[in-house]
């Protein structure tokens, strides 16, 4: 049985408040049957230094990506992961992590590809929980295996491929969520990530630049109030909730965060994440590139 929703007033402004929980709500609800807390970090050791009591670790690299093909795990591997983490199809999964929930949003998006119904983010992520002095532990939970069924991944609704992006140019909005220097092509990779590079710099023609981090408060990492999010995505770049939107970044993780904001916080109905992103586009032969 899924957990109750967080009825905190500040969450109710969003289109789908049931997709967020506050740190106070999570602390009060830890241990509730049907609730699994999952930490997904950029730093693979961070969970082991201390995590929210009872939280399991889901690693974006080793758990969610296929080790051979550049793709997500298949249905069998995903079901095996859910079983090992004590998750059933009815479980409420609350994701949280470092870097403003960057990787937590990615794990939530991949989980959504497999149709898991009740997935939520901890507003403010790991940093807010720790800054508030809430409990952490190094105890690793050992959940009993579940019988999570094998569910096929549906890549048709919230995931976009290169050919679809190509056809989208001039026909629908694209949002580039990378840093400004990556957008202009000054950098062929994100600052500090020289190895995730591309042969060519710039952006996909017609794309709007909205760095993903703008959706979060600079101090505590929580999502901005809905009117400020609307000001960015609707007033500033002219999106409307009915638009068919494709977001991209470098390998699709930062754009998962923007996908979450547009879909769950602003209620956009047709947002896809192009996970091939710039590592594919900037290395692909004969795709158009724009440079200011």
């Amino acid at each position, binding site marked *: 049985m899924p957990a109750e929703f967080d009825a905190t007033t500040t969450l109710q402004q969003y289109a789908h408040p049931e997709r967020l929980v506050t740190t106070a709500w999570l602390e009060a609800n830890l241990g509730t049957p049907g609730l699994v807390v999952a930490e997904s970090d*950029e*730093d*693979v*050791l*961070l969970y*082991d*230094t201390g995590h929210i009591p009872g939280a399991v670790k889901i690693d974006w*690299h*080793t758990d969610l990506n296929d*080790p051979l093909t550049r793709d997500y795990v298949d249905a069998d591997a995903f079901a095996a992961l859910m079983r090992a983490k004590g998750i059933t199809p009815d479980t409420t999964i609350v994701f949280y992590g*470092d870097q403003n929930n960057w990787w937590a949003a990615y794990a939530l998006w991949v989980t959504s590809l497999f149709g898991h119904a009740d997935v939520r983010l901890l507003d403010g992520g790991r940093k807010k929980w720790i800054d508030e002095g809430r409990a952490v532990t190094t105890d690793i939970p050992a959940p009993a295996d579940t019988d999570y069924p094998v569910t096929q991944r549906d890549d048709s609704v919230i995931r976009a491929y290169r050919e679809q992006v190509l056809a989208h140019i001039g026909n629908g909005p694209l949002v580039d969520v990378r840093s400004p220097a990556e957008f202009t092509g000054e950098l062929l990779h994100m*600052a*500090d*990530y*020289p*190895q*995730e590079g591309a042969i060519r710099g710039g952006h996909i023609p017609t794309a709007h630049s909205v760095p993903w981090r703008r959706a979060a408060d600079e101090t505590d990492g929580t999502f901005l109030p809905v009117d400020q999010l609307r000001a960015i995505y609707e007033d500033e770049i002219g999106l409307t909730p009915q638009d068919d939107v494709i977001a991209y970044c470098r390998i699709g993780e930062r754009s998962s965060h923007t996908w979450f904001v547009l879909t769950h916080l602003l209620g956009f109905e047709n947002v896809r994440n192009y996970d091939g992103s710039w590592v594919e586009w900037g290395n692909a032969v004969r795709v158009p590139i724009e440079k200011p």
Partner: protein
Amino acid sequence: MRDALHEIVEEFADTPKELRLPLLLQFADALPPLPQRLLDDRDAMEPVEECTAPLFLAVEVEPGQPVRLFFDAPREAPTSRGFASVLHAGLDGGTPDEILSTPNDFYLSMGLDDLVSPLRMRGMSGMLARVKRRVAAGMSA
């Protein structure tokens, strides 16, 4: 490769896969704190841009003396701390020649590439390259 570093590489390689990350975490915890003179003079430390987290290093080279290495990384960046600590335990106190002879890709033999995204493993080579550059500069100074 310097013996101390070689032994660490072997230790990782010989550790069962599921215990390698806990071992790296032990290294992260064991990174010694900076001496007061560097805490007082943070500008003397060089940022390592290849790391995803803020990481700083300093290298002290004196003629005829063992090379001293110093690293600083936040507790919330245990992977970078762990890499720094491996280099510290393996190379601190070595001779300039021992440090300069370290293979740039020595860490590939540690068996961490299945566990840490290969894209993130390069922070280690960034640190080593900077250490070597500082040692080479110190010898010619």
